[in-house]
């Protein structure tokens, strides 16, 4: 099932609507957000993903991570996340 997620990439200027399948991983969701923001922010190889203040395991599927339609996630490069 396709799940629309509001994604906020650290360093970017706006929130984007990313469509992801619930069987895809959180890592793939983060990659998709980084691709979508690429005109403004260069993609980073290592990121953390946060949902409601919790860091999500990147290998979890979107469904197992508890993400549902119109949830808000944050993606932060590892160095930025460490200093947040």
């Amino acid at each position, binding site marked *: 099932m396709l799940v*629309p997620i*509001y994604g*906020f990439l*650290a*360093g*970017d*200027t*706006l*929130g*984007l*609507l*990313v*469509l992801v399948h619930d069987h895809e991983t959180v890592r793939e969701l983060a990659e998709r957000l980084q691709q*979508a*923001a690429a*005109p*403004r*922010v*260069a993609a980073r190889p290592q990121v953390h993903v946060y949902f409601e203040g919790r860091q999500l395991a990147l290998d979890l599927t979107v469904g197992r991570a508890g993400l549902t*339609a*119109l*949830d*808000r996630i*944050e993606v932060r490069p590892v160095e*930025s996340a460490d200093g947040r």
Partner: protein
Amino acid sequence: MLVLKRDQWLDLARKLDWEPSYVDEKQLFPEPASGKPWLPAAAWREWDEPYRTSYTEYVTNQQAKEAAVHTLRDAVGQPDDRKALDPCWLNAVKLHAATLPLAEFAAVVGNLRAARFGRDSAWRTTAALGALDELRHAQIPLLLMHGWVESDPQFDWTHKFFHTDQWVAIAARHFIDELLLASDPIELAIGTNFVFESGFTNLQFVGLASMAHRAGDRMFEKLLQSIQTDEARHAQIGRAVLEVVVRHDRSHAQYLIDKWFWRSWLFFAVVTGFAMDYLTPLAARTASFKEFVQEWILDQFQRALDDVGLERPWYWDQFLRALDTYHHMLCASAYTYRATVWFDSVLPGPAERAWLAAKYPESWPQFEPIWERISGRWREAGPGVEWHAHGLTPVGFCNLCQLVLCGGTPEHNTARTLVHAGRKYIFCSEPCAFIFKSEPQRYAAHRDVVARILAGQAPANLLELVTAYFGLDRQTWGKDVHGGRYAWLHPADHPEAAEPRS
């Protein structure tokens, strides 16, 4: 013959309230139409405003102003005159031309409601003249821009904008419909006359007019100044109404200030913030958007609040922070989604960025890498390849202001979610969430662009969204104003432009 002096007869024409005998006062002025708080006529009896204009004076003055605008149009408002203006500046004009004229027409409706349901006859008289003002403010730009449509179809959006489902138009309608079409006369007076007109329109009608002068656009300068003199008069309704409301329901007065200040701020951050700090050529900038806001809002509006005994809005610190960031967040976002709007955008070069860094020393370092990244995308693709420096993914919109989710800073976006009556909502900022939660019945049913996409009412594919839903086409959708052809961007072709201009 005995001739009365003006002050001796004027109130015979302005103060015409009477005691109703066929219906009671609440039937004559029902609360849903006249506004909250409902007060007996005695509470409004001393209502007055300083201009105290008679109808004869109004007609005489307006006739002279109309003649001046028409003379200037004949002299410098012809299609050939447009060609002499800076192309970036013309896009500031297009932004104003689309977002303001039909909003002014909505203000005709609001003022006519006040001309019937305002609680004092002097208020109703001033509102009637205000309605005539607003009709003029709708008609002048429609007339002046019409001659330019043939050579530049983006100017057609002067009339078209409010009739489309383009995303800025949805946001503008959400704001304007509530403020001007749906508000009762009390909310209209406080939201429009006191906050929007007394507080904010000087940014556009005084600040941007000074830049129009320096940009050599005498027609637009005259248009703004001619409108401003009307605004200054009918805006006086606001304070006179607010003073009465503060005496009887201070918390409601404060809420209306808090609500409409934030909503007006967001509107002007788009309309004036873009125009002043990005679309106005560097040589024509008289001050930054922030400096104009500091002069007209931080100084004058705060004094006005003090005078009536109200507090600054509770989110004042957030507003001050947003002054350094919000329109920069929006501009970088809009530039990389420029095909979704009806005017062209400009890539700020080294000189413009140095100016922005000097004007916004605290916040600009966060935006510099973003513009450097966008510039790099242009370098990779070369001139004319718009889509490499353009987003393709749908963006999120605030469920209150309907603008893109650009609150906060690049490091910390302030967007927040809320579940209300089983539906998920997202807001760009705490004040937008506060307004929604204060009146959910007013806002909950509205569908933002994302909800329309998910409901199948609008396409998710960006190109289809732009053409089939926003109403733009290849001719009118926004592009880089120079097609990515900047000497500083390609120094190998232009070695003289490799160093930033000071």
